[in-house]
């Protein structure tokens, strides 16, 4: 899409309502499969769900749907897997379908166990860099922020992320208070409130 002289990048809103749309997942996976990049996605998914052997696109009631082959040999519809796996798959497929685009993710932490949050953030940072996709994540969760900071730390690239708190100032206007990666790390390490 072109607006004036600037390209408006494609954008996707990934929320608890939109993220499990089977057709979206099937379309995005198909695109990736055609590009031969599906194995990378499956490997990333295994980091969170080691029981998943592979993901396949099958026909079900005249509709394409994603299925997962599990380590016990069973083939399960993605919809039957846990919310954490579905959420991660949805995020991965969104980013990989948005080269040079923008992804908005709304509160993904509600469906992912806290211990897995750093790994999810690692994947988000890795893929967003690889696909040049700018990712906006909305959260109220301190655990999610701490996991993001830990991932920034392990990436050794504080510039890869920034945190913005949206709040009303004294005049009632909405303002953004920005922290760079280093400031976010310092604030969370020092037990400061940033939300």
């Amino acid at each position: 899409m072109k607006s004036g002289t600037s390209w408006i990048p494609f954008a996707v809103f990934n929320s608890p309502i939109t993220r499990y749309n089977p057709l979206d997942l099937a379309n995005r996976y198909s695109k990736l499969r055609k590009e031969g990049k599906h194995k990378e996605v499956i490997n990333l998914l295994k980091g969170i769900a080691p029981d998943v052997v592979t993901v396949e696109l099958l026909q079900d009631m005249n509709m394409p749907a994603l299925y997962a082959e599990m380590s016990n040999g069973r083939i399960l519809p993605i919809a039957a897997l846990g919310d954490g796996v579905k959420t991660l798959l949805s995020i991965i497929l969104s980013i990989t379908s948005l080269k040079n685009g923008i992804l908005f993710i709304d509160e993904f932490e509600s469906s992912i166990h806290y211990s897995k949050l750093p790994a999810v953030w690692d994947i988000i940072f890795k893929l967003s860099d690889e696909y040049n996709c700018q990712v906006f994540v909305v959260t109220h969760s301190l655990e999610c922020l701490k996991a993001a900071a830990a991932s920034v730390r392990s990436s050794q690239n504080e510039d890869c992320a920034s945190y913005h708190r949206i709040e009303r100032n004294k005049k009632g206007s909405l303002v953004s208070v920005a922290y760079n990666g280093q400031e976010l790390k310092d604030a969370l390490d020092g037990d400061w409130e940033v939300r």
Partner: protein
Amino acid sequence: MPDPKYYEKHKGRLNNSKKIIVVEGEDDASLVSWILKNDCNADPADVGIIDVGGTANFSPGLSILFKSPGITAGTATHLLILFDADDDPTLTYGRIKAVTTKHGLKLPPLGDTGSFSNDLYGGIFSFPDSINSGDLESFCLATVKDSELEKLAANFFTQAKSLLDKKGGSMNGSQHKRIAQAYLSGCTGDLVRGAGLGFSRGHFDSSDPMVKKLSDFIKKSLEI
């Protein structure tokens, strides 16, 4: 421990405190919370103490403070900064001024009160008296100066240092901290690990004019 009515390790109370006191560490918070309760009769619903986690964290801690919800959303109306003068109070003052300037705030002169901004009033004070070098420990020790135990502790330090000098050893850090530890080891009750905590347990003289000067400064800064 500092009085939990005024202090908690997690700085979330910043969101609700109208009057914020920033100190270097938990031991400073012990002294200040005692003064807030006993000398200032400060309302814990309004006043909160936060520690930045050590001298080295003062500048980055203040930088984070100025981005904290309580400050940016305008909940806080008063701010008091207390720090150790160490060898030269102007050095840390200069570092703090650089941080306030970066965030578009003014800084009152050392040992004085004034406006940080149109919405934020307060003061800045260095231990022991905003003039001389020293720290929290020298502030506390000054309240018991020339007492028998203080003289014993100072004498112990002098002799121990002399012994160390003969052996070619050296001491790092504040000599006041060492004397304060020797002093506290001779006090009644449980052994306490910090001068501020010792002060809150009555091991120093809270009626000394230096304490009155500090509590008056706190009241003036926070308009209590």
